[in-house]
């Protein structure tokens, strides 16, 4: 089953997703995909992995890490399916990152990898955009690169763990304006989800709604205002986002 959060007529709803991405409200109403505003399906902290695909590490000329490289994102950077993200004016390189996301379902502390999947609410997808112009070598990747308003689309929904039997062998794909630009497979993850849950929960308690964004394979490219960017993880979801300019974003978002 797929679970989402949407806004409809000014109210937020927890919904289930049916055929053609129609959403079923708790009161039984069925609404079409384009009738609703899709919200991020979870709003905890996000632990995002850098350099977690061997091919991508090579692409960035980095030696693959021996310990997970995790950075933290806060809820203000999330946005939902079919929403917009903004490219700052006067930057040279903003790229997408298609990622499989594990969503925590119950508090996880000192969890062993063989038990890890029991702690999941399910899986979702994110597009972990980065503005590379702003990279600095302090707490890299720094917040100005990765924690910008509405620059981490998440969703469209959370799919149950049982509905994704082979999470270690899923295709990841990114299309820009309909053209396939990035392709990889979760088979190439350096640190897989059970290992990451064991690692993070070895020193902290993961909370329900927290997310682990598992990193992206090679195939990054610049995106500009007007682009439609679709990231898809096979069997999990297809997440659509459009790029707008900084000027347009802040004109529309400030009264």
């Amino acid at each position, binding site marked *: 089953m797929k679970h989402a959060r949407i806004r409809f007529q000014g109210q937020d709803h927890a919904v289930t997703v049916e055929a053609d991405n129609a959403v079923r409200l708790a009161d039984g109403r069925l609404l079409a995909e384009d009738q609703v505003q899709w919200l991020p399906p979870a709003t905890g902290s996000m632990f995002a992995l850098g350099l977690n695909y061997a091919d991508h590490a090579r692409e960035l000329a980095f030696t693959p890490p021996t310990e997970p490289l995790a950075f933290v*994102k806060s809820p203000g950077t999330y946005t939902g399916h079919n929403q917009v993200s903004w490219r700052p004016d006067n930057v040279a390189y903003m790229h997408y990152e298609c990622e499989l996301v594990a969503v925590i379902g119950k508090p996880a502390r000192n969890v062993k990898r063989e038990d890890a999947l029991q702690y999941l609410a399910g899986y979702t997808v994110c597009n972990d955009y980065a503005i590379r112009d702003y990279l600095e*070598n302090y707490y890299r990747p720094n917040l100005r690169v990765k924690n*910008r308003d509405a620059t981490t689309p998440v969703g469209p929904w959370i799919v149950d763990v049982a509905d994704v039997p082979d999470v270690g062998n899923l295709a990841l794909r990114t299309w820009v304006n309909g053209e396939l630009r990035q392709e990889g497979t979760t088979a190439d993850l350096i640190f897989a989800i059970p290992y990451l849950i064991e690692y993070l929960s070895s020193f902290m308690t993961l909370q329900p709604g927290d997310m682990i964004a598992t990193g992206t394979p090679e195939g990054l490219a610049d995106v500009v205002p007007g682009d439609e960017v679709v990231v898809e993880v096979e069997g999990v979801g297809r997440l659509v986002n459009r790029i707008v300019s900084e000027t347009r974003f802040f004109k529309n978002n*400030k009264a």
Partner: protein
Amino acid sequence: MSRGLHEIASGTLFGVALNYQGLLQQRLAEFDQAPYKQPPIKPVLFIKTPNTRNVHQGEVVYPTGVERLQPGPALGVVIGKDASRVSQAQALSHVAGYTIVNEFSLPEDSYYRPAVKAKCRDGFCALGPALVPVDAIADPHQLTLTLYVNNERVQENTTANFVRGIAQLIAELSEFMTLHAGDVLITGTPEGRVDVRPGDRVDVDITGLGRLTNTIVAE
């Protein structure tokens, strides 16, 4: 008193590293070398995840297998009104008030990678004892921070030594991310962090904000 603070300051905890002149100066020579290559241009930021929240008189767990644990006395700025792209002149109108933060961390030898393992452990961010309204503090850049371990004064500095003041931080951060009502800006810990051990009582005193007390306990 403390409950009011935690109800209001319930948002994201954003930390600023290297925001004391003395600390930055200590490391500047190193920052010209790899992997940094140049000193920081923008504020050096980190996030204390919600599991790190702790309270006045709360226990801070000294993790098993950890060699050193260090308190991080800091002035906390609680956002009262969403701040997106605000100027320095407007910035303080978005502040609800101030509190004391003790930003516990394992020692930071390197600033190169995000310090999740050092900073995001359960209970590693104590806030309190109270939210002091912005009007009650005449000049937030003239406050003395004092750290006591078992009633002995071990670290002292003043917010006059900030690299960036509060208004500048709010302006620079809100350029790319909204500071939401309830978010807390942890304005930095000065140089001279000390080690603490299980059994220690740790107090942070900031002029006009009272005293935040925590005890260290073994895991």
